[in-house]
């Protein structure tokens, strides 16, 4: 996760994406108008180069909450996998787990804590929670809610150290997931 975080910081620094700003109005619309979602008020919002949104209260090295839309083709870039609208939730979940494992040597050794169906934007999706350690041995939890639609694969991701931080903001993540709506649904 270190590389995407550093890339985020550098993109913001050099002005490749909109300047980070506080979440002042809770309901936001995706830059490509593909969804709306409530984000935690007061958190700092930043956009990635793929126009996905990431928010954090204390800093991206600590907690991150991300909302992403990926095209169906090559939805999973590290594992080079496509998704289709007809895929079952468990199939999407296993692809997401493989994608997380492909991130680095530490996530490759992750443990799956939860993997179950979940309703996302009123559709049948999945919820996956995994644990892994950083090179310093600090344990992280990462929870992902995902769903596929003809317009793409949607993922809501929450990642934080297990110690104190994951539970501290989990309720905000849950509210974000509950509020998420794909456009036109």
């Amino acid at each position, binding site marked *: 996760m270190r590389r995407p975080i550093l890339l985020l910081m550098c993109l913001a620094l050099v002005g490749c994406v909109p300047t980070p700003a506080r979440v002042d109005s809770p309901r936001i619309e995706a830059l490509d108008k593909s969804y709306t979602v409530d984000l935690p008020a007061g958190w700092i919002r930043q956009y990635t180069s793929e126009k996905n949104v990431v928010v954090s209260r204390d800093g991206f090295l600590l907690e991150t909450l991300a909302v992403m839309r990926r095209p169906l083709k090559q939805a999973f870039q590290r*594992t080079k*996998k496509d998704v289709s609208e*007809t895929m*079952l*939730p*468990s*199939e999407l979940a*296993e*692809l997401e*787990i*493989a*994608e997380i*494992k*492909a991130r680095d*040597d*530490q996530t*490759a*050794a992750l443990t799956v804590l939860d*993997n*179950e*169906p979940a309703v996302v934007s009123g559709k*049948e999706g999945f919820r996956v929670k995994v644990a*892994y*350690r*950083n*090179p*310093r*041995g600090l344990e992280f939890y990462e929870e992902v809610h995902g769903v596929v639609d003809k317009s793409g694969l949607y993922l809501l991701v929450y990642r934080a150290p297990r110690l104190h931080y994951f539970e501290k903001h989990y309720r905000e993540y849950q509210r974000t997931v509950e509020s998420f709506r794909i456009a036109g649904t």
Partner: protein
Amino acid sequence: MRRLPALGLLTALLLPSGTLAAVGAEPFTSGAVARPASEEEQRAWSEAEELHDIIVRSGVVYDDPALTAYVQGVMDRLYPEFRGTIRLTLLKAPHLNAFAVPDGGIYVNVGLLARFENEAQLATVLAHEGTHFTHRHGFLSARSLKNNAALATFGSLLGVPILPQLIAISSMLGYSRELETEADEAGYRRLLQAGYDVREAPRVFEHLMREVKAEDIQEPFFFSTHPKLKDRFGNMTRLSAHAMGGGDGARRDEYSRIVQQARIDTLENMLSMGRAKQALIVLEDETNLRELPPHALFWQGEAYRRRGEAGDAQKAEASYRKAIEAAPEFAPSYRALGIVLLKAGKNAEAAANFERYLALAPDAKDRKYVESYLRMARKEPGGKP
């Protein structure tokens, strides 16, 4: 490690040729005298120690004391005078990889153990990696990396810590031609001295070449100065061409028994990482399948399903059915078959298989998924429209 980072490729371009003799240093002759000979070498050892801490803390060690002791035993047989100095650590990664660090730490992926057919093949790799330590290749390469003024022209390489790059370079794709040849030849002599069947040595490179093909690794252009796997295979074949039979360590059944759990863990790990092509290298081999539990045909089906090439859906279904026949109490086969049938619109048969799965595994962690698929198959309310 798993991936050769771009920086590793760049630094590998500029690796030295030349052995210890060229810089007036001597190989270690035993564990008793294996210590840094200079402050510079001490730094490499210190960094190796820190790397070990990182490896242990970050949860990537494969925790099987009995298996680790077995592999350590093979290493000690090859390098008896280094007992206690060369220390083995197994890593969870399923890739075919092993590497040595300057202070005698040798790291072996369980994927490597799992792929080999016998102890002699494992010993070939350990003998090779041991030579990287005894002949101080890590220190030698680090020394040249540091002093290579050409590196300074690459701004992005300023301040790069040495060890991760050396690991990336040394693993799989090798150090320089001279150092790899030295490790192959000295390692070969160790195999002979320890009484291993050296005719197994070239088989190691066959495994590696198959892995490279499945990984779709393009051997980069810098291989023009580094020995390709094919060349090393040829070299090892030449060395062992006149070997008499009767060497030890080629007994497959005993080795298979020892590494059985590692094989299972590796296959499951590979499948969960989506490395279906690599898993099929193992699972399409009838000899391998015979050594695995009867339900291994389920993993074969999973590998076909996840590979997802033309015809794989049918192959997956056939494998699941064979798995049910071979191991009728193994629940996941029913779930997997049920999913294939559901997607093919064969709802009644799908439902029957889901029901059988839930009966066999009432506490299954994925129960909620299967219940939702059962509703779909029965076209009940709450199922997918």
